[in-house]
């Protein structure tokens, strides 16, 4: 009957319950919900699209003429670039256009061996909110004199385009 021997059942029951509840709490708390933006998949899709479009503009129509991108960089025709790039990058098989915005600039080497950029196509982008922007680039060899470079010569330049979805 009642004696001085103790038992630990209740305390051990409490202890076990506490352990399980703590673990469950930690586990449920730690599993994070990944938003689609965290997975960078949309970034990958945008980057692929941008580099495809740039490669297409940089392909000559036949074996002897120069590519449209070379002509655009040599004449600094930003409007033409905007029109061509927009048609390619926003084209879909279903009817209706996609809504990808972009801006472009051209990086070149100055006579003092530093790198500078000129704007090819400007577009304002809201710096707060919105999705990530992705940068794609394409190498072009053009014959052009840039404002603060030495002379008219054949040079390798990098056309860089920043893309984002509105």
């Amino acid at each position, binding site marked *: 009957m009642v004696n001085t021997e103790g038992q630990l059942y*209740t305390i051990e029951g409490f202890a076990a319950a506490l352990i399980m509840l703590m673990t*469950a709490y930690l586990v449920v708390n730690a599993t994070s919900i990944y938003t689609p933006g965290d997975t960078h998949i949309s970034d990958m899709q945008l980057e*692929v699209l941008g580099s*495809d479009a740039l490669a297409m503009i940089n392909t000559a*129509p036949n*074996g002897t003429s120069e590519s449209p991108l070379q002509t655009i960089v040599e004449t600094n025709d930003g409007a033409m670039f905007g029109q061509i790039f927009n048609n390619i990058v926003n084209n879909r098989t279903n009817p209706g256009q996609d809504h990808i915005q972009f801006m472009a600039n051209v990086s070149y080497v100055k006579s003092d061996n530093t790198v500078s950029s000129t704007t090819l196509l400007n577009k304002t982008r809201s710096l707060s909110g919105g999705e990530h922007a992705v940068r794609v680039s394409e190498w072009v*060899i053009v014959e052009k004199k840039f404002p603060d470079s030495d002379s008219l010569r054949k040079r390798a330049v990098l056309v860089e385009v920043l893309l984002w979805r509105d």
Partner: protein
Amino acid sequence: MSDNCGNLSVDFLAGFTIFIIAFIWVATMIPGLLIGLQAHNIDYDAVAYRTGVILVEDPGAAGKVIPGAPCYSGSDVSTVSGPWESQSDKCHIARFGLAVSKDTPGILDENKVNRFFCWTVSADPNDREKFSYPIDYQERAIFGDYPYRFNISLEVAGEERVRSIGDVIPDGNYGYIRRDVQIKGSSNATINKTIIQTKYWSKENVTTDVFTIHLNCTKLLGDIRHSPHQVDYRGYQIDPGLDNIIINITDLNTLHYPTSKTTTNLSSITINPGNMPLGAQYTYIDGNATPVGTLPSNVMSNISLVFPAGRVISDSMEVANPQLYITLTFKNTNPDPTINGTYGDWFLNSSMSGPFEYDYNMANVTQPQLQNGVLEVAVW
């Protein structure tokens, strides 16, 4: 005797109850962790991206899907030769790929595109050419253990219909990638009145006229590799072994002089070397939609020779010959209605001026055009 000592102490019951309540509570929380988890759901986008890369940047491969596995009975061969789009048995295609070559990613070959989009739903085992959805595509383009459903669509500028393979895209969760591509068409030579009258109009009154078209394969393969296309020349190259060769000869009815004849007789077409009679299966006369059955045949104004990819080489029976001559022989067997007894008149003839060169001269040959297109892959 009975006493009122129980088997289980109250202490034990209290402890055990607390434990069980906590255990039940945790057990009901666990399914909440598993809500968002479906194994194959996660990588739809990755599979779509991979398929997009395989189709747009890889030229494909002929061979067996599983090396060494036997093919449908009677169609096994020891070595598979030629590009994948020219294999008549789909068992000899290891992997799909639409790019012209591995150095021209983004430029698709129209023969590969045409073959790729030739599909059906029911798998008739006797049809060795058409691909059946989805199994043939899963083995050769989608890959992976899980049987993904998919939809691959291609829209080409200038074509009305969008080409498409697969199911309708569902409303729910699916992986998606979009690629911008260019499709390389075939070259063609249109030999019209201007070209003929400048160079190939024989002013002798002969009864047999011979017109030869020369394909200098060495020059065709080599001339295009000049700067700046050392790497991507395959996007602009005319390759008689892989591309279609189309030759249109028009305005023939305007060449007769001084007679007033309107027709002539095309007696034969041969390909040299090999002197193989071409057989009339590639020849279309006067705008007819079906090839002329047999030669000789009367011609009024147009002749079209449409060689499918590689045939102009394979039909010459000389697989690696660098010089090919296609010779058309015209016999003026119809007498002139206005001049008594005269058979000969001026006509198309290349004997004096030399054969017509099918090469990269844009004045004579329309070069392969690059058409813009969009390829979309959806996987679910």
